C-alpha cells in the first residue's frame, strides 16, 4: 500500500487520473488487484475507484450515497450542465478551425499556432470564437484575439481538459477528461431520449 501513497493523495484530492497527465498511476489503476487494495483502504472514507467505459480515466466515487454525498453530486451536476455548452461549442469550433476530424479523442494534439492562424484568417470563426471566449466558463474580458486564445487554452488546461507537454511549446494534448465529457453527453442523449436527428446538419463552416 505504501507505494500507492502519492496516487491515493491525488485521488483523494479529487484528481482524475488519465495516461496523459499521469501515465504511471493510470497504468497502476488498470490493474484490478491494485484497485481492490486501494478500494479496501478507501471504504472507511466512503469512497471507491470509478471509471468510464473505455477506462481512459479513473476518479473517486462515493461508496454509499448518503445525503451529504447526494448534496455534493447535485452541485457537481449543476456545474457540469452549466458549462456543457461552452465546452462543446469550443470542441465544435476547434474541429471546424483545424479541419481535422480527429481532435476529440484522448492523445490527439492541438497546435495552438495553427489554431490561431486558422481563426484569424476566417472572420466568421473569429466572431464565434470571441463570443465563446467571453462566456462565463472561459471568462475572457479582452477584445484582443491573442489574449482570448490564451485565456481559453489556459482555462482548458486549468480544468484538465488539455495538457501541455512542454511549458514553452504550442502543442496541447487532449486528456481523458474530454472522454469523460463525451460519455456524459452520450449518456444524457440516451437517457433523455433526446430526439436529435442522426443526420442533423452541421453548422455551415463559412
Amino acid at each position: 500500500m505504501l507505494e500507492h501513497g502519492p496516487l491515493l493523495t491525488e485521488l483523494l484530492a479529487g484528481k482524475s487520473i488519465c495516461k496523459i497527465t499521469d501515465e504511471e498511476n493510470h497504468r497502476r489503476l488498470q490493474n484490478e488487484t491494485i484497485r481492490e487494495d486501494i478500494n479496501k483502504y478507501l471504504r472507511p472514507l466512503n469512497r471507491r475507484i470509478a471509471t468510464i467505459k473505455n477506462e481512459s480515466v479513473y476518479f473517486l466515487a462515493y461508496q454509499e450515497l448518503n445525503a451529504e454525498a447526494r448534496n455534493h453530486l447535485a452541485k457537481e451536476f449543476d456545474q457540469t450542465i452549466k458549462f456543457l455548452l461552452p465546452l462543446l461549442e469550443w470542441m465544435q469550433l476547434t474541429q471546424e478551425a483545424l479541419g481535422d476530424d480527429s481532435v476529440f479523442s484522448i492523445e490527439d494534439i492541438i497546435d495552438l499556432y495553427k489554431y490561431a492562424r486558422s481563426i484569424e484568417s476566417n472572420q466568421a470563426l473569429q466572431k464565434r470564437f470571441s463570443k465563446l471566449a467571453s462566456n462565463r466558463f472561459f471568462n475572457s474580458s479582452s477584445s484582443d484575439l491573442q489574449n482570448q486564445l490564451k485565456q481559453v487554452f489556459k482555462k482548458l488546461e486549468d480544468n484538465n481538459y488539455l495538457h501541455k507537454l512542454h511549458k514553452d511549446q504550442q502543442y496541447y494534448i487532449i486528456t481523458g477528461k474530454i472522454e469523460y465529457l463525451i460519455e456524459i453527453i452520450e449518456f444524457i442523449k440516451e437517457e433523455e431520449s433526446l430526439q436529435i436527428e442522426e443526420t442533423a446538419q452541421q453548422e455551415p463552416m463559412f
Partner: protein
Amino acid sequence: MVANKSTTKNQSLLHAQGVKRLNLIGKYSTQLMDAYIKGFFDEDSVSVGILNNLVDARILYRPDATQGLKLRPDVNKLIANLTEDERKRQINADVSSPLYEINTLVEHYTDAQRKDNYIGVDYYFYSLTEKVHDMTEQLSNDIEFLWNKLHADFGFVNNLSDKIRENELAQKQSQHLLNGLKIIDFNYLFELTQNNSKLRKLLVVDLQKKISELHSSLLEVQERLLNLMLVFRKQQKRLLLINNMVAFLKQNPNFEFRDYPNRSNVPDIFNKAASINASANIALDRLSDQSVLSEIVRSLPASVENHVEPLEVGNDFETTEIISVSVEYEKLKKDVTKFFEYFIEQNVIVSALVYLQNNKLDWDAELWLFQVIAEYEGLAQNFHQDIKFEKKKKIVSAFNQLEIIQDIHLIIVV
C-alpha cells in the same frame, strides 16, 4: 530460325521507338507535369509540331473535339506512381490476363523444346521468367500502395467522410487483389510444367512462395484497414454527437435535465466524490521523529533580543508581523520556563494543562503542550534522567494509530 531473326528485329525497332518517346516525356516534363496537375495540356506552351509528336507518341490525347488535350490515363498513372501521389495511384493488378499469357508462353516453350529449337527455348523461358516477375511485381506494388495509404492514415484527404470513402475503396481494392491471388491455380500450373524441373521451379515452387508472402501481407493490410475504419466511424459518431448536442442545447436553453444525482442508482459519471484533504500536523508521539521535530522547533524565529533594527526601507507590515510573532513566542517561552521552575520546586506530579488553567494563561492548550515538550527536549541530557516526563495520549483513529497528546505530567524522580 527465321522467326527468331524477325523477333530480334522487332525488338530493336521497339527499343528505338521507346527511347524516342521516353525522351519526349523528359524533354517536355515541365509542361506534362503542369497538365498532370491542372488536368489539361497548355497547347500554347509548345509548337504545333511538338504537339502532334506528343499525340503520336500516345502521351497526349483529345477525348473529343470540344475538349483540350489531356494526358493519356497510362501516363497519368505513370506519374502518379513515380511521385507516389496517393490520390491518383490506382490498383492495376489483373491476374487473369498474365496467367493466360503464361499459359501461351509455356505452350511456345514446350513446342520449341519438342522441335529442338534451343534459341526458342531460351527466349521463351526468358519471356516466361519476365512475365512471372512482372505479375508478382505488379501485385507487390499494389499491396505496397495499400500499405502506404494506411501508413499515411489517409492523410491525403482531410475530411472524415473522404477518409471513410477512401478506406472503403482501399478495402474493395484489397478484396479485388485477394480474389486475383485465388485465381492462380497451382495444381493446373503443376500439370502444365509436365515434369520439367526448370519450369516447375519457376511456375510452382518460386511463384508459390512469393504468392503466399503476398497473400499474408494482403490479409494483414485488410485487417488494418478494417480497424482504421472502426476508428474513423467512431470519430464520425463523436463529431455528430457533439454537433447535435450543441444544436439541441442552443434550441432548448431551459431544458430541465433529469435529477441523476438523486436516483437510486447514480451512474458513475455523475458520482464524482468531493475531495478529501490529506493534511498532516506535527505529532510528537513517535520517539524516532522527536529529534527531527525539535530541530525544526529550534530553527523557529529567533528571539527578540537578537533582533536587529528593521531596514529603513522595506515593507513595514511584514516586519511588524514577524516582530509580533517573535514577541508572542518569547512570551510563551518565558511562561513555559516559569512552569518548569514551578515544577522543579514541587515534589508531586504536575500537570502542564492544570498549571495552564490555574495560572489563567492565555495560551492555546496544544501550543502550550508543544512548547513544554520543546523545552523538555531542550534540557541537557542529564536532566532527562531526573525528570519523569509522561505524555498522556489518547487514540483517535484505529486505522492509522493516530494518537493525540492530551496532557503532560511531570515529576522529579531523584
